[in-house]
């Protein structure tokens, strides 16, 4: 009978909804994309925050509680980026597996080197992160470290598929190194270029490719731009011959636009995460798009 031929197919359908698949919740889009590249069909990934929203202030929707309730693994960016919205959700999810400190909780900031660690911490300095700048995803050299941490944790939770996860990680690494060469070549002419940022979100990217950060348009982290500070930044842009303003998609752009128009500098609205702009729908295309917008001047 031909029916027998359908059994494997049927099995596959059932498998895709069986709890055999590891349920992973990621806070941000880039994490979700890396996890799905390593876990592929053995893992089901759900991402909480929208990529085009401010990663510091996500509205903690009750639906996130339901997502966390069923998770085997929660992967966060860490470095206090989620502190304003995630802890409450974790507590309400009644899921012992994903409590901080357990095997089902992975804090990626523990697996990379954080820069801009403040020597003194005071909220007089705005919304500072005592552990350092948490936007480490934007250093492409951190992607393999993040992927390794994810792989190790998937293996720990699902050792039967160790070879599978490790092979996928290796594949991602090779692909990433290849792409890195292309980005490096394209960004070489920008070495030493002086830029101004709106928020210190692109620091890792800028350091990696040899840009010099002259200042920020927000006077302090998380504090909106003021007229006085804009005047200071304008002076700085003139003195330092700054040609670019780097800005994320979620902060107000009027201050940056105003400065860009008056001083004839180029305002670049760049993705900071997967989903921040339409073109940046995975970790590769985030960097592709940053490079494209930068070099298309």
């Amino acid at each position, binding site marked *: 009978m031909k029916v027998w031929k359908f059994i494997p197919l049927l099995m596959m359908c059932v498998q895709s909804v069986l709890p055999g698949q590891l349920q992973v919740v990621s806070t941000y889009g880039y994490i979700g994309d890396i996890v799905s590249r390593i876990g592929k069909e053995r893992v089901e990934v759900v991402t909480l925050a929208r990529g085009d929203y401010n990663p510091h*202030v996500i509205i903690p929707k009750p639906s996130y509680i339901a997502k966390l309730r069923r998770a085997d693994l929660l992967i966060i960016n860490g470095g206090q980026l989620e502190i304003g919205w995630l802890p409450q959700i974790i507590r309400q999810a*009644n899921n012992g597996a994903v409590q901080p400190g357990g095997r089902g909780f992975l804090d990626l900031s523990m697996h990379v080197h954080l820069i801009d660690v403040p020597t003194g911490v005071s909220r007089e300095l705005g919304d500072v992160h005592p552990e350092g700048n948490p936007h480490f995803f934007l250093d492409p050299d951190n992607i393999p470290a993040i992927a390794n941490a994810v792989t190790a944790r998937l293996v720990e939770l699902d050792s039967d598929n160790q070879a599978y996860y490790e092979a996928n990680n290796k594949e991602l690494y090779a692909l990433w190194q290849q792409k890195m060469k292309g980005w490096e070549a394209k960004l070489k002419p920008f070495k030493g270029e002086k830029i101004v940022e709106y928020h210190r979100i692109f620091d890792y990217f800028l350091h990696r490719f040899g840009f010099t950060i002259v200042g920020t348009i927000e006077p302090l982290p998380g504090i909106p731009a003021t007229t006085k500070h804009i005047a200071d930044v304008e002076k700085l842009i003139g003195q330092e011959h700054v040609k670019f303003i780097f800005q994320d998609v*979620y902060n107000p752009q009027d201050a940056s636009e105003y400065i860009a128009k008056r001083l004839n500098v180029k305002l670049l609205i760049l993705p900071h995460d997967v989903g921040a702009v339409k073109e940046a729908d995975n970790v590769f295309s985030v960097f592709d798009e940053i490079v494209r917008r930068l070099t298309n001047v």
Partner: protein
Amino acid sequence: MKLKHTSIPMVLLLFLFHSGPLRAQANEGSAFDQSKFVPDIAFILDVSGVARDMNDQKYTSLSIPGFSYPFLNPPSPSGLNAHRGMNFNYGEMSLYSVVDPYFDLFAVLGLAPDGAGLEEAYFSTRKLPYGFKVKAGRFLASFGRVNEQHEHYWDFANRPLIATALFGEEGLKETGVQATWVAPTSYFFVFGAEVLNGENGQSFGTSGFTAHAGNVSIAPVQGPNLYIGFIRSSVDIGDASILFGLSNAMGKTRNDQGFTTPGGTAAAIDANTNIIDGEMTVKYSLDAIRFISFQGEYMRRATDGTEYAYDAFNALSEPSLDKHHSGLYAQVLAKIDEVWEIGARYDLLLQNDVSMNSVDQRMPSDLPRYSAMIEYNPTEFSRFRLQFDRDESLFMPASGGWLRQPYTQVLLQANLTIGAHGAHAF
């Protein structure tokens, strides 16, 4: 770095004898340093300035007739923003830490110039299987939406009218146990049950009483007196999140307001009370910064029992008491940019039916309050709120009934936080 007291003599000795590396010894001096285990601590300060077209004496003597149990002697408005001019509303210290792998512990201390009190303190489980969690201690009951929120989470400077009318200035804060279960479904469903002492004097109460004339003797309630059940669920429709829920609270209302005292004129009550609550919150994100939200809640209370009082001839009267109260609030908020937020709220006490021996006591009903506010948040740690209230819910006793005493107030509230960063709930 800070030296522990115990290490100081050792450091002095080392200076005297120049033996061994000083630095290493100083570090070993902190071998028993526990500072890394200090819980997350936050302190919240709330002060306000109030302008009101009614003097304080009159304002604090007014009441919402019928809503509290011996309707002849209802509570007066007090607490937050009670005085014209400057008000020190509260200083609140909160502590949180993981106890061990299995438990979390929270404590909230209310600090006032004339004393301190433990507002809340409870522990909760971290690792129960199958989506269960148990918490126990003293906490704000998870009854409806606003009751569980601390003052600094409120969207307005005062609690919704119906919540104050039913539970008083402190809300429904009780000692007891709560169990919740979150369903393993793709939609959010939480089911919860609470077993509480039920000491809230505004709607419940556990004290017994004995008449000094007649043979009335009502025993105090021993053991749990208040049982709460709730269910909440949520759906996301595009960028809008909708949270809705139903709660039910039932318990005995056993209260003595001076009835036991010989010659006392006040009444006592022995009744059963049931309160239901329906809540809905909708939050719609316009973009990464701006949102519009709606929040509404409806509560209805039924109390059925006996009142004990003395008549003009000091003889005991025991009328049957039947009370039905309901009210709602509806509020709309809009976050218009990174620092500004505006909002409006409509409060209404609907039903105010009190009957004794089936005789309607003709309590005033349909009591509204209108509020509007504008909020300036320089950062998420400081907030300044300008609020306008027009309150038509308060009365003073008058011959043959009650006389409505509307007032208007404008208040400027400052609320600031230092220390640990509080995570925001939906």
